[in-house]
């Protein structure tokens, strides 16, 4: 059934949320969210703390299951799928709290991001000795991240900004088409943030990007469209210019226009 639909309409939106609700015990965190993100769009999710942005991320990436409603990636429903299955469908994410492999080297961190995508599976036979194509790909990613010089350092020993960059690297190494970034510039200086923005722009070229961010500067620089989430509901979803001008958003969130 899905196959026929795919053939007829190959331009499925990357992410579609329909009537998504999420309850934890008696508390409803997400109260009916509808969202449609077309392929190749850079989309930012903003909102005050506690609005449910990370919960929404966790729902889309499969960490939690929806209480009701549906989520579809490239036209395929993600209902009941475990996170690794969703990842294999072409979605990858970064985490709010840096999530890397601290006891492995920078090089191995990135390479792990490539293993499944390059078909290595759970093999106990194929040796990952040097000189393989996957190593060259890993080096290419490291170059992009500006971490090539640190390739043999244990990831746990990197600076915070380097770890955040590495996290992005692991996220995109496998070539995921849909990228979710959870507060990628959190805790960064101005200079580090600018570097991160450049990186995000380069790695999301031609891909679909959904990003949670608090730094409005970053949001307005990168986003094609912005969705504002307040108390688990979508208050507005539009282009940056319209969002800026939206009085409801201004009241609820942006203040009097200063960042």
């Amino acid at each position: 059934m899905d196959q026929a639909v795919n053939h007829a309409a190959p331009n499925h939106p990357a992410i579609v949320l329909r009537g998504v609700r999420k309850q934890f015990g008696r508390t409803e965190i997400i109260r009916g969210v509808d969202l449609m993100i077309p392929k190749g769009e850079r989309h930012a999710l903003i909102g005050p703390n506690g609005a449910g942005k990370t919960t929404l991320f966790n729902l889309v990436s499969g960490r939690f299951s929806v209480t009701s409603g549906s989520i579809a990636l490239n036209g395929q429903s993600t209902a009941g799928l475990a996170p690794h299955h969703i990842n294999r469908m072409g979605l990858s994410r970064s985490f709010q709290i840096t999530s890397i492999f601290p006891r492995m080297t920078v090089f191995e961190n990135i390479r792990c991001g490539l293993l499944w995508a390059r078909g290595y599976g759970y093999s106990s036979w194929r040796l990952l000795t040097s000189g393989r194509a996957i190593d060259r790909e890993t080096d290419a990613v490291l170059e992009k991240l500006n971490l090539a010089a640190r390739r043999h350092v244990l990831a746990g020993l990197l600076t915070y900004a380097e770890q955040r960059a590495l996290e992005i690297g692991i996220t995109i190494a496998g070539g995921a088409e849909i990228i979710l970034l959870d507060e990628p510039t959190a805790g960064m200086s101005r200079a580090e943030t600018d570097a991160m923005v450049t990186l995000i722009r380069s790695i999301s070229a031609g891909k679909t990007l959904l990003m949670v961010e608090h730094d409005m500067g970053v949001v307005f620089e990168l986003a094609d469209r912005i969705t504002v989430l307040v108390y688990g509901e979508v208050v507005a979803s539009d282009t940056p210019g319209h969002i800026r001008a939206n009085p409801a958003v201004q009241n609820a969130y942006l203040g009097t226009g200063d960042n």
Partner: protein
Amino acid sequence: MKVVVHLLRRHWLWPAAIVAALLLPFAFFDWAHGHHSGFVLVLLSQIGLMTIFALSYNMLMGQSGLLSFGHASLFGLGSYCAAHAMNAVKAGTFWLPTELIPLVGGLGGLGFGILLGYLATKQRATAFAMITMGMGELIAACALMFKGFFGGEDGITTDRVLGTSILGVSYSAPWQVYCLVVAWTAIATLLMRLQTQTPLGRMANATRDNFERAQFVGYDPRMVRFRQFAASGFFAGIAGGLYALVYQIVTFDTMSADTSAAALLAAYIGGSGSFYGPILGTILVVLLQSGVSLLSNAWMLYVGALFVIMVMFAPGGLAGLISRHEPIRRIGRLRALLIPYLRLLFPGFITVAGTVILVELTSFATIGSAEGQHLQIGARSIDPANGMPWLTGAVVLVVGGVWLRREARNFGVRWNMLIEDAKTKWTRP
């Protein structure tokens, strides 16, 4: 040919270790009567097969972050499988070279690893630990129930002189068995080392570090755990098979909680964070077990105390302690630690001596006297009922302890200075 030479030069440690292992028994050779010391050969064989067992255990603990309390089940089941195979070969049911008997153990361990691992790896961390403990108990309880396979309380006896050696060796002599053990230890260690460099091995590390991140690079953490568990069962089974060959009897001891504990102790004390750590740990634990247990009833107390001290102060084990010296070695200042270490050595020795005196006095006061033993140092017999030895021991312990504490503080100062030096002189690795 060039490739072989290149490989040998890069990895010279392997053939060197094998040669050393083969030469070692000759240090205890009885030249007057022209034969090896049986005790030494069995001890070294034990070290060899326990090394495989501990390394297989570390595939779970150090590599995958899985703490198992039932690993002996796989070791023992593999051992029973090998013993039955040996008996079948002896009876002529089928033909198998003696050299491949450990492989039968390995396949048995693999099979049971798949069976048990299927359930156990549904969970991770503490739940996994509890499941493996329950499984270990369950299988140990089965030992007395299924007499056919386990042979009840007497176990399964077997004979390794099968006459099916492809090298034409009878394996009646301990020396011949020892060579086989060395060969298998080398092969198993090499295979396990290579396995760490496979996709599964790398992802086992990754899943240990961060299972959520592993999911988001496309791997199912449960599958990684499951396959790693099965693989570790394979190698544990090989160790079990060697056990059957060496001792020619397999009892439910091989599946006991004590045997699982031995693997844990060996792997942790040696250093679970490094591949070779468990090898160090095995040598230490087996020597303590075989050596100290001859002299003292309290050897388990010493091992337990050593273990607790390591958990609190040196979680990286012996290998971890050694690797902490790496930054200092790189700036060539290792020699600066020589005197501080020597200054630690003497008070350390005194503290240990004081502890040993008190422990042994207690031991002989209760267990020893019940068994009619007397504490003897040299020719003098020491009576635990007397107060003097206790006082001596206590004084020695306190003096040693105070002195050690002071020297440890000095050592710490020296160490930190050198580490700071290393950090500033070596900003880029």
